[in-house]
């Protein structure tokens, strides 16, 4: 199932609110190795892992939507996706810091799983940065400058020429 723009926007708000809440909570609570805080950090780790399942759906769903030609605002869509990933990585860092300072060694069972998920987010973000049709303002400015100098040619002629080259290289299959 592919993800929609509105779903992404709602998810961005939710994650930013989560991050803010965590930052506030971290400032208010004193570390307590055996008490309430340990239970809360455990719950947070579990929530991060559950969120990763949802984000996996968003991430792959976004690419499915691209492949189905159903994204018509690449910038907003890609930026929402990127914000979700970066915000969630900040949440991971906060939770891991809480776990490191407020829990006894081995007190949180699935901390390693959270670290692995965090690495997975990093890879998603790298992939997104490299493989999304982002607007590139430098390229646009250069293109405008070239156009103003009258430096432009027919795109259909270029494609025609490239097709001819490809046919020749491929042994004239068409």
């Amino acid at each position: 199932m592919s993800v929609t723009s509105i779903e992404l926007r709602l998810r961005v708000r939710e994650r930013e609110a989560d991050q803010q809440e965590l930052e506030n909570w971290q400032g208010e609570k004193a570390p307590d190795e055996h008490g309430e805080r340990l239970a809360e950090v455990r719950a947070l780790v579990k929530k991060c892992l559950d969120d990763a399942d949802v984000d996996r759906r968003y991430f792959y769903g976004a690419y499915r939507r691209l492949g189905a030609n159903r994204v018509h605002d690449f910038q907003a869509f890609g930026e929402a996706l990127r914000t979700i990933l970066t915000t969630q990585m900040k949440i991971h860092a906060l939770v891991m810091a809480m776990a490191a300072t407020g829990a006894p060694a081995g007190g949180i069972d699935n901390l390693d799983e959270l670290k692995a998920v965090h690495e997975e987010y990093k890879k998603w973000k790298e992939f997104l940065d490299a493989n999304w049709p982002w607007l590139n303002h430098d390229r646009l400015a250069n293109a405008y400058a070239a156009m103003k100098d009258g430096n432009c040619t027919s795109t259909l002629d270029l494609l025609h020429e490239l097709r001819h080259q490809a046919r020749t290289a491929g042994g004239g299959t068409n």
Partner: protein
Amino acid sequence: MSYDIKHGPLVAERIKSWDLPEPLLAELEFRLVEDLRDNPARNLHIITNDPDYLEYSFASDIMHGGARYLFAFRVAYSTDEQTLLLLDADCIAVPD
């Protein structure tokens, strides 16, 4: 009316760098003619926060290497009102 579709050196460089096989080049050519030449407004989208540019995109019908290819072009109308200028181009493979 029918628009000429033109590009600058940067877009030419990018299209060449994709090293597309002939069937995908043929689809690209076909789509530009079908979607942009005669009635571009129908297929151009305004980019949120960057209204100076329009965007045209499509995912290829043709599969290559187990993927469809998403093409995205940033487009502007020329002041001569007869030409569409392709300012930038992106192509990414989207595994099916």
